[in-house]
């Protein structure tokens, strides 16, 4: 909807609705109409997501440069991530985006119990994602692949030391110089998945709030802005993962 028609409709709606006081209770007083309110908040969320793209963009830039410089180290570092857990997490997150989209539909069609179910499912899937991430991070800790805190390069100097990964990829031993760069790979791994996980935590917290509010019927009386805008945020966090997954997990994984 173009701005001018929104404004025109806004004005018309204001005229239709008559004076101040004859508007839905959830319409904020500085808006002339519900349409204007929805438009504005929706646009604001898209803009916010744009800032998030720029935010993650810095990390992606650093990643792409380092991967270009130290490709062998990134290959072998990536081989040490669990493709099983990574793929599971991807499936979990995509499903949670589906349940979230279903939730928005329920809100639109005023299905209160459906909405609550969808929000709870999304919440559960979000928690599952974080649990799996915890499992993965724990594995890195055990393997001494946590940069700066607990890190050795022995797995990369002598890949045979990790039989599972070696059996799969038969990586060649890296020279010490290149093996040292695997720490850079894992730094970026933790920074990017950590920043993503932080966004998940924020999302999950808001979901808890939303479940409470949904039970009170806040989103099924026609005012779906909050749910819809949160849905956008959740999809965005999903999309960031869709980029992270191949970049981090799928480096040279053929054969």
């Amino acid at each position, binding site marked *: 909807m173009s701005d001018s028609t929104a404004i025109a409709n806004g004005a018309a709606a204001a005229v239709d609705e008559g004076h101040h006081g004859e508007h839905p209770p959830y319409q904020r007083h500085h808006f002339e109409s519900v349409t204007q309110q929805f438009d504005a908040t929706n646009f604001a969320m898209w803009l916010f997501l744009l800032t998030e793209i720029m935010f993650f963009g810095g990390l992606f830039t650093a990643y792409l440069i380092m991967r270009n410089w130290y490709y062998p180290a990134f290959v072998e570092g990536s081989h040490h991530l669990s493709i099983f857990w990574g793929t599971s997490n991807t499936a979990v997150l995509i499903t949670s985006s589906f349940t979230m989209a279903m939730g928005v539909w329920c809100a639109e069609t005023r299905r209160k119990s459906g909405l609550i179910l969808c929000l709870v499912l999304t919440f559960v899937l979000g928690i599952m994602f974080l649990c799996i991430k915890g499992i993965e991070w724990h594995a890195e800790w055990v393997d001494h692949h946590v940069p700066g805190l607990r890190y050795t390069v022995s797995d990369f100097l002598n890949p045979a030391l990790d039989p599972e990964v070696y059996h799969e990829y038969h990586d060649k031993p890296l020279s010490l110089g290149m093996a040292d*760069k695997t720490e850079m790979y894992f730094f970026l791994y933790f920074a990017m998945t950590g920043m993503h996980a932080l966004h998940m935590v924020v999302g999950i917290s808001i979901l808890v709030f939303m479940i409470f509010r949904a039970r009170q019927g806040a989103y099924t009386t026609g005012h779906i802005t909050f749910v819809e805008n949160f849905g956008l945020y959740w999809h965005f966090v999903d999309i960031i993962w869709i980029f992270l997954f191949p970049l981090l997990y799928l480096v040279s994984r053929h054969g």
Partner: protein
Amino acid sequence: MNHISPVIWQFLSHWLHNFPLFPPEASAIAPQMDALYFFMVLVSLVGLTLVVLLVVGFSILYSKERHPKAVQIEGSTLLEATWTIIPLGLFLVMFVWGALLYFRIYTPPANAMNIYVVGKQWMWKIEHPGGQHEIDELHIPTGQPIQLTLISQDVFHSFSIPAFRVKREVIPGRYTTVWFEATKVGTYHLFCTQYCGTGHSQMIGWVVVMSPEDFRKWLANSTSGDSLAQNGERLFASLSCNACHNTQPDARGPNLVGVYGSQLTLANGETVTADDAYLRQAILDPSQHVTQGYTPIMPTYQGQISEDGVIALVEYLKNLKTDYRLQQTLNTTEIPPQIEQKAGTAAGQKPAPPTSGGQGEVKP
């Protein structure tokens, strides 16, 4: 008034000498840069005068008392075009002129004499190829293009000689270069201009420009110890580089004779020129710089050599032009067989230093 009173003239010239508006022009490029600078000052003055005239002029002519009723004017495409195109044109002239200067300053000529500068908190270590070391002072001759190869041991610094109109950032992890040709004998300021911590304002010194004969005398008087290349040779041996980089046909590493300046094909197919920066990287991060046909078994010397050491090695390699010369190095530093064996097996283990023969005698 057809002459300025001698008193006023004396005052003016005394004043200009003691309150200069720009530093002395002591390099070949300085007058060229000053020319552009003065062009810019002129354009700025004209621009400023124009704006001031317009603003002050209109303010007077059209003040409320003089011009009580404003005339609404939408604009003028012609004027917009004028004050878009003329400034753009002037700026583009400055861009081209500046770019020419920039390329000139950062593209050293082939016959430039190279001097190494290592910056560290908070001093400048200057190393002439003949082995003369200076701290916070740079002695150079007039009339000779001089290239500085700069690197930092810690944080960003910046090497600035205002009288020469040159400045270059000094960065940890890679070489930067700048060149100049001094034209006037004298002593000029040397500053660090990139904030580097507590002693930033103490990281200053002098550039002493001498006539070529005076410079030769100075070089002779201040030689202490070996040249950079000799130091490099010593390091080459003590770090056991010759275990792999020797003249044997089945050597584990490429023969480094004549490598400086040559075109190398790397293991990944890339072709590079083996300049100072490349050689430094190859020593400190060899896994990235494996020559085609060799395996990546060279250990990294990161943390084992200081930047001064790298510079010495690079100087040695620059002067390593014949197999005979390399053989001299090898002859004076024997490596016992068991050490040689060890160096070839476990990757990532540094070869032990030679236990017999030691540093040997290094022939000059």
